[in-house]
């Protein structure tokens, strides 16, 4: 219960909601007739409205990226390691906007919202939205906030894909693109994992074809399983090893070299949970399933699967990137096997082919894909140095 917040924390933040009456034409050919976007802001917008940074969230993220919602709040926003006074995204310098994407379940219009046309939950009738649709809706939000040009658009994983889309679709509205732990499109293996997650949700007896809210229930086990599979891909083998593998043998929970920690001192010789990693995954899945909407999870995985900005350019990503006029910072992490460094290098290579200005950092980190959320010194250092430079450029332009 942090009554006294650390000096590098943004403190208590309050989400805001903006309603849009406008139609949003979607990539699928459908359209959304009016919608809400919920967002938070940190820091102050300067007088020429040039110091704004947009945060794009990943699969399970939302608008609450930094700070606390109340004095009683025990958990900070999901990217509090990177956003705050003096942090990499320095709220003493920048005005930071973080929203919940369309189709989300944290306040923006999504499958768990009421469809005004029917008075019922959207459920499975909520249209499939893509990264491009999100970015279009983010541009509408920018208009409402009076931000014609973002100093930087920043995101990790699925968030990094939105950043690339910003650079390609709105070249005049973005100064710098920061793409972290992401990929130019999903690999077959990435899609395969997503399909396992989707199948686990849709095959839950409580899924009811996506109309579980109407039925007064939700596919808890399916969502849990989906999250467990996903969670494995966010961690590295070594990170799991150091978290759950301290025992020297499976039978020695007190050892410290090699092995797999047991929940209790003995094997059960049954099919219950024996190892710590199992109960950890169960706990993570359970917690997630209580706070996340299953239909949103399906939508987010589809947005990932469909992302491929090269598609409008005959499959040539460099031609897509030729549209961009911003500078790029790309960062990857050595043990990330969901979007490994090789995928980030692909982005860099296509940017080079498109003759764009790009910097690339490949950070040694043990924690896998999740590294982008963590305070890894070299990552934070490079990130901060880059954005400090962005801020100095702004000040120079204003002078």
């Amino acid at each position, binding site marked *: 219960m942090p009554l006294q917040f650390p000096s590098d924390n943004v403190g208590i933040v309050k989400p805001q909601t903006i309603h849009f009456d406008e139609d949003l034409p979607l990539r699928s050919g459908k359209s959304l007739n009016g919608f809400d976007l919920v967002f938070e802001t940190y820091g102050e917008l300067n007088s020429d409205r040039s110091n704004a940074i947009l945060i794009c969230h990943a699969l399970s993220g939302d608008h609450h990226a930094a700070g606390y919602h109340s004095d009683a709040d025990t958990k900070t926003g999901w990217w509090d390691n990177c956003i705050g006074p003096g942090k990499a995204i320095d709220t003493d310098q920048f005005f930071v906007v973080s929203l919940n994407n369309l189709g989300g379940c944290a306040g923006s219009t999504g499958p768990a919202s009421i469809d005004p046309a029917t008075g019922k939950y959207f459920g499975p009738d909520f249209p499939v939205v893509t990264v491009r649709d999100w970015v279009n809706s983010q541009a509408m939000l920018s208009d409402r906030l009076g931000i014609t040009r973002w100093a930087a658009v920043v995101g990790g994983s699925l968030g990094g894909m939105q950043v690339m889309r910003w650079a390609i679709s709105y070249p005049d509205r973005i100064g710098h693109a920061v793409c972290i732990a992401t990929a130019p499109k999903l690999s077959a293996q990435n899609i395969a994992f997503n399909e396992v997650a989707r199948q686990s949700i849709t095959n839950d007896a409580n899924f009811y074809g996506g109309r579980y809210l109407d039925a007064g229930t939700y596919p808890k086990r399916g969502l849990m399983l989906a999250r467990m599979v996903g969670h494995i891909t966010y961690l590295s083998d070594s990170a799991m090893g150091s978290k759950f593998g301290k025992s020297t043998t499976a039978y020695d929970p007190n050892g410290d070299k090699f092995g797999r920690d047991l929940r209790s001192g003995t094997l059960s010789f049954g099919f219950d949970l024996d190892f710590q990693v199992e109960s950890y995954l169960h706990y993570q899945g359970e917690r997630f399933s209580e706070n996340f909407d299953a239909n949103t999870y399906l939508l987010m995985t589809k947005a990932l699967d469909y992302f491929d900005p090269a598609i409008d350019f005959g499959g040539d990503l460099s031609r897509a990137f030729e549209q961009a006029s911003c*500078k790029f*910072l790309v960062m990857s992490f050595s043990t990330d096997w969901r979007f490994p460094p090789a995928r980030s*290098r692909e982005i*860099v*290579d296509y940017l*080079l*082919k498109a*003759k764009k*200005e*790009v*910097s*690339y*950092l*490949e950070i040694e980190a043990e924690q896998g894909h999740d590294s982008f959320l963590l305070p890894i010194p*070299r990552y934070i*250092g*490079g990130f901060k*140095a*880059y954005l*400090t*430079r962005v801020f*100095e*450029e702004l000040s120079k332009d204003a002078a």
Partner: protein
Amino acid sequence: MRPDLEIIQNWITPKSRVLDLGCGDGSLLNYLRLKKNVNGIGLEIDADNIESCIEKGVNVIEQNIDEGLTNFQSNSFDTVLLTQTLQASSKPDLLVDEMLRIGEYGVITFPNFGNWKSRLSLASNGRMPVSKFMPHNWYDTPNIHFCTVKDFDALCMEKNVTVLTRTVVDSQHQGNWAMKAWPNFLGEIAIYHITKNS
């Protein structure tokens, strides 16, 4: 202003595209950016150097030159720089090929092992020269491919590479008439401006 940068910048066209292989802390690219408004990109593997580049606003890519440059398109840069890195690369001859595949011009600087001090040190001590200028022991030196001005001239000849300018300077990056007359004997640092033979 380091005199070698002064020499090199004369060869760089304003607003051209420059790739710096082993760009260090980004000083050269930053100088070229401010002085010639170049569109520059550096390659570097040292974490502190990379952060220094970013602090300066110099584009830097974390990439090991020894693992190849195949990700760079042919003729995608005007000039490719290689300062004080040739002797530390695993395949210097192939690196020269790659430089002139990627860029129209190449600029290479390297310590001249043919310098009289190295010769004297080796001749009198019978051991690999260690000096302020070349401070490493033979076993821990990153400089695994030392060469002399004559050696490099021969390589250029062999590869049919055109040497536009060859300058040698001392470790303070100063040159004089004597060095011009006996570059391989008096020069401590060699600076080459090369291009493909048309």
